């Protein structure tokens, strides 16, 4: 299973439609402070089903929608789509490529899709369960988490270990 593309629009500081290609083994993301690097990682967590606002550095889930600047109005929709190539058949589906998308409207309505077909969050969770990249994943690590893992805040260690076991 290979990650191929990430498409972001209206999510946090990404007002414009932005596509990131992941064709190489190790991809570096660089840029000035506050430019939007961690927002890309938040977009990946969000599209894979993350429900906890604290994991996304938010006070409420509606704050993921681009909230505008001095020169631009805020957006009404936040949308992220992530595409995998199911080359080793790790995902329990016969599709060769798999696109998961998540959309949130200002009205509060949210929508999940798998390959363009609307589905529930439960369907995405059961699809990813064997891969280790659902919520509570051990595969996304930010510097701030080091203290949580070592002090085992909210049993962080056990939750991650259970993802791997």
């Amino acid at each position: 299973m290979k990650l191929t593309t990430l498409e972001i629009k209206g999510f946090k500081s990404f007002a414009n439609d932005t596509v990131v290609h992941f064709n190489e083994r190790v991809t570096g993301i660089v840029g000035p402070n506050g430019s939007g690097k961690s927002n890309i990682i938040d977009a990946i967590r969000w599209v894979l089903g993350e429900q906890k606002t604290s994991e996304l550095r938010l006070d409420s889930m509606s704050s993921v929608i681009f909230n505008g600047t001095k020169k631009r109005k805020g957006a009404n929709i936040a949308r992220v789509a992530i595409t995998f190539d199911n080359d080793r058949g790790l995902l329990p589906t016969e599709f060769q490529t798999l696109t998961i998308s998540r959309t949130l409207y200002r009205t509060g309505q949210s929508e999940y899709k798998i390959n363009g077909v609307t589905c529930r969050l439960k369907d995405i969770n059961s699809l990813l369960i064997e891969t280790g990249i659902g919520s509570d994943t051990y595969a996304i690590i930010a510097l701030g988490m080091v203290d949580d893992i070592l002090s085992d805040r909210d049993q962080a260690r056990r939750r991650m270990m259970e993802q791997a076991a």
Partner: protein
Amino acid sequence: AKERFVTAFEQIRAHFVDVFRSLFTEEDFCDIFLENPEDPLESPIQIVARPKGKRPQTLQQLSGGEKTLTATALLFSFYLLKPAPFCIFDEVDAPLDDANIEKFNKIIKNFSLNSQFIVVTHNKGTMASVDVIYGVYMDEPGVSGLSPVDFRKFKHSGMIETVGAS
């Protein structure tokens, strides 16, 4: 469920010791154990780390860089049990000195044979060791933009300054 967890736990422990030793040195001691082994599904998981031949101590006494390496070693041991399709590190290399940056990047290179890695960093050593770089910048105040950057090309001309990333 109990047996499954205990077997997984023992494998994670073996991986933890391996990775910890490759990030520190061969003689360094570390371990993870279940506080109440008779109740594996509920028991808290304890970590012991003793880098550089030091006396047994609590995790609190470790330095900033040693804490980061210990936590990273534990997460890699979960990964080795069940390799995820991708792994993301967001400025995890910030507290590391140059020698540990090299070790950290070497491990990522080794594991990248199995999965993809995405590394957010300000460290030039890490930038030089990845395969491709995306520069994120503020297109207009408050709006993010993204463009691929060829580090090799910019390295000498200093052009990478345009994404403020060097």
